[in-house]
């Protein structure tokens, strides 16, 4: 019963917020309110939940404020009660310590649940694809280890398939963000973080770097194009056939500071991605380091 009402409330408020977004006229532009995949959807639900829970206290507080200020203003003839010495009430104190505690508990539980669930792939019955992302100054390099192709400043993905983005940086610390598909994660030198995203429908999604990296940062925008699997395969094949290869020299050019156009490559040096990570200190982040951390001699002699 309880569950029922809460889920009902939940739907109403979700509806309310969506309506609000629609009313402003350009819903498509509120990227975050336009989740186009399960990850973004989960995050959007949580946003709605937290907004509603906050509104549940904030709105009464505001109403109370206006009421009190109006009622007890100091003007001659105000008949409202005046109790200058009244300064304590156990019951009231319990109420306003209690309400926030309850709200935070609810919010905390949902936060924990979603945090843990986002670590896993959004859907488990479809075979995911992997894309390795490197942020450079000031461009994005995408490598497709399954297709052995690479692109710069745009990415294509199959729709309806979970994508495992592996993120690293070969320069400053950036953040990889495609709002309609899901939240962001940092790209850091020497590490490869995993970010699961998925597009339910074909479409073109806006992406950008979100962590400041210097002069060209504002231009680090890119598009993620989701296509049906067949078209995606077609695209990959096309690139494999017609695009030039990404040689080490070409990669070194990419790492120079500067902007770049969209580019496609039919191949890239084997293990470019992992070399990048290792070169930037990745060896300290390997799992065995965590457990064998004390053993300094071991790690040094194994190379």
């Amino acid at each position, binding site marked *: 019963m309880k569950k029922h009402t809460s889920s009902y409330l939940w739907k109403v408020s979700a509806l309310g917020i969506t309506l609000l977004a629609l009313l402003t006229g350009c819903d498509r532009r509120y990227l975050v309110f336009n989740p186009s995949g399960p990850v973004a959807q989960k995050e959007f639900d949580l946003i709605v939940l937290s907004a509603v829970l906050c509104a549940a206290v904030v709105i009464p507080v505001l109403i109370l404020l206006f009421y009190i200020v109006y009622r007890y203003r100091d003007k001659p003839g105000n008949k409202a009660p005046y109790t200058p010495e009244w300064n304590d009430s156990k019951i009231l104190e319990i109420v306003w310590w209690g309400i926030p505690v309850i709200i935070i508990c609810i919010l905390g539980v949902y936060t924990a649940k979603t945090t843990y669930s986002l670590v896993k792939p959004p859907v488990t019955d479809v075979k995911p694809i992997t894309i390795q992302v490197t942020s450079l100054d000031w461009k994005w390099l995408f490598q497709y280890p399954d297709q052995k192709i690479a692109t710069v400043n745009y990415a294509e993905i199959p729709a309806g398939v979970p994508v495992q983005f*592996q993120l690293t940086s070969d320069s400053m610390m950036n953040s990889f963000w495609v709002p309609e598909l899901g939240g962001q994660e940092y790209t850091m030198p*020497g*590490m*490869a*973080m*995993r970010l699961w995203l998925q597009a339910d429908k074909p479409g073109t999604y806006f992406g950008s770097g979100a962590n400041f990296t210097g002069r060209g940062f504002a231009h680090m925008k890119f598009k993620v194009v989701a296509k049906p699997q067949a078209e995606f395969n077609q695209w990959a094949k096309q690139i494999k056939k017609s695009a030039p290869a990404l040689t080490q020299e070409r990669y070194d050019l990419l790492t120079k500071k500067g902007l770049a156009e969209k580019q496609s490559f039919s191949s890239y040096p084997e293990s470019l991605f992992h070399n990048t*990570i290792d070169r930037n200190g*990745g060896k300290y*982040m*390997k*799992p065995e*380091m*965590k457990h064998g*951390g*004390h*053993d300094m001699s071991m790690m040094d002699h194994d190379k």
Partner: protein
Amino acid sequence: MNGHENHGSAKTYIMGFLFSIILTIIPLWLVIQHVMSKSMLTVSILLIALLQLIIQFFFFMHIREGEKPRYHVMALVLGAVMVFTIVAGSIWIMTFNSQVH
């Protein structure tokens, strides 16, 4: 400066000194002789260091001195909590793996 002052005596200083020497030799010996497994050893020498700290505080730095309330002791205790947070927190946060490797 009323009567309750206690600046220690030669005896407490000598005792403190002896204790601290002993508590320095023990971990040194433990490490050089490799008497236990590494993790055990780590834990025990850290504990001994803590013990040594307490000795110094009581025998040399006289933290029990001073008029009440002893704000400096409160500051120290809170400081200890913060020190722990900084060190343990950093290690906890920073030892995350590269998730893909």
